[in-house]
C-alpha cells in the first residue's frame, strides 16, 4: 500500500537504467580513467614508479622506456599528482577490456620531435 505512489510514479517516468550500447553514460570532467603519458615531455625521473602503490609503472632511464601494466593500475592518480613535469594525465573513461594481458610500453625517441610508440 505504501509503495503505490512510488509504483505509479515509476510507471509514468522514464527508465532508471540506460539502454547501454545506444545511450552511453556521460563521464564527469575529473573522473579518473586510463593513464596516459606525453612521452616527449617525460624526463624519466622515476618518481611515478616510486610512488605507485600497486607498482605498475616501470621506468628505465638507460633504455628510455616508460612502461605501465594497465591491469595492475588502480586508478588512484598518485603518479599524475607527483609528476614534476606534468606529462602524465588520466582520461575520464576506463580502459576498454582486452583479451590478453599486456604491458603498455612507451619509448622515448632520441629527438624531441619523434612520436611516442605504443604497443
Amino acid at each position, binding site marked *: 500500500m505504501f509503495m503505490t505512489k512510488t509504483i505509479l510514479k515509476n510507471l509514468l517516468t522514464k527508465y532508471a537504467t540506460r539502454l547501454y550500447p545506444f545511450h552511453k553514460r556521460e563521464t564527469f570532467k575529473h573522473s579518473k580513467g586510463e593513464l596516459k603519458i606525453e612521452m616527449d615531455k617525460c624526463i624519466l625521473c622515476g618518481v611515478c614508479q616510486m610512488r605507485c*602503490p600497486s607498482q605498475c609503472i616501470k621506468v628505465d632511464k638507460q633504455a628510455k622506456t616508460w612502461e605501465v601494466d594497465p591491469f595492475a593500475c588502480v*586508478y*588512484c592518480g598518485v603518479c599524475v599528482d607527483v609528476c614534476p613535469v606534468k606529462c602524465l594525465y588520466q582520461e575520464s573513461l576506463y580502459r576498454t577490456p582486452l583479451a590478453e594481458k599486456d604491458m603498455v610500453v612507451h619509448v622515448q625517441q632520441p629527438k624531441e620531435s619523434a612520436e611516442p610508440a605504443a604497443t
Partner: protein
Amino acid sequence: MAKTVLPFGPQHPVLPEPLHLTLTIEDEIVKEAIPKLGYVHRGLEKLAEIRDHNQMIYIVERVCGICSCMHALCYCQGIESLMGLEVPSRANYLRTIWAEMHRIHSHLLWLGLFADAFGFESLFMQFWRIRERVMDLQEETAGNRVILSVNQVGGVRRDISAESAQWILDTLKKVEKETLQLKSTILDDYTVKLRTVGKGVLTKEKAYELGAAGPTLRASGIAQDMRQTGYAAYSELDFAPVVETDGDCYARTVVRFNEVFQAIDLVRQAFSKLPEGELAVKPKGLPTGEVISRVEQPRGECLYYIRGAGKKFLERVRIRTPTFANIPPLLDMLPGCDLADVPVLILTIDPCISCTER
C-alpha cells in the same frame, strides 16, 4: 526432534560476502552458532612491510569497498599525529564531507540489501536508485565512485569548487526527498514489521559487555559515536548520536535510516562553514612512535594501531574493523531465533567480511 547441524554460508544468496556459520538447530530453532572466518584474507597488514607509508594509504583504502574513504582518513590521522602535522581547516571539512557522503551511500546500500534479505526486492531497487545519485557526487568530486583516493598525509588531494558544492546540496535535497518517500514502506509496513520487530534482541547490557559498535550498539540504547571525539571537523559541527532503545532488528533499521538524514545534515553544515585555505601541508620527517587512531565508519568504530620506527616503512599496522566487534553480539542474538530469521539477523549487523579479514 534431534539436533541437526546446518552449515550456513560461506556461499548463501543473502550474504554479499563469505561468512560461515555452523548452526545447530532443533525444530527450526537455532540453538548454537559457531562462526568461521578467513575465506577472504588478503594479508593487507603485512603489505606495510614492503610498501612505504604513503603507498599504504591506497592499500588501506582497499580494505573495504564501502567505507574506503574512512579507512584512509583513519590511517592518515594516525600518521599525521605521529609526524606532528596540523591539517588545514579546509582539508578537515572536505574530509568530513566525503566521509559523510560515504555514510549516506553505505546506509542506502544496506537498506537496500536488508530489504532484499526479507524478500522485498522492489524496495531494494528503490534504495539503490537513490544511492546512485550519491555515487555520482563522489565520482564528480573525487574522480572515482567508491575508492575515492582523496586523503593524503597532511590533507586532501582534491578541492570541491563552489559550483560542485551547489550541485551536491541540490542533489542531496533530492536524495533526502526520495528517501523520505520510502520511510513508510521500510518502517511502517505490516509485513516488514513482522520480519523485524522483536527479532534478534540485543539488550543494552549485552551490547556493552560484548563490545558492539556503531548502529548495532546505538540501537540498543547506548549513545556512543566516535564522531563525538571530534576528529576531522566534527568538533565544529552540531549533531547528536541517533539512538534507539529496543535493540531489535527494527531498531537497527531505524538507526541506519535516520543516520542517512543526519549525514545529509552534516554535509550541509560542513558546506555552510567551509573555510577557505590550503588543502594540505607538506609532511616532514618520517613516522616515529606508536598511535591509535579511531573513526566512526557506517558500521561502527574502526581502530588503527600504527607503529613507525623513523623509517620509510612502518613496523606494524593493525586494523580492527567494526564488523569484527559486531560478530560476538550476532552470536548472542542467533540462539533462540527461527532459522528463517538467520539471514535477516546477519544482515542487521551490516557485515563486511573482507574488512574483518583484511
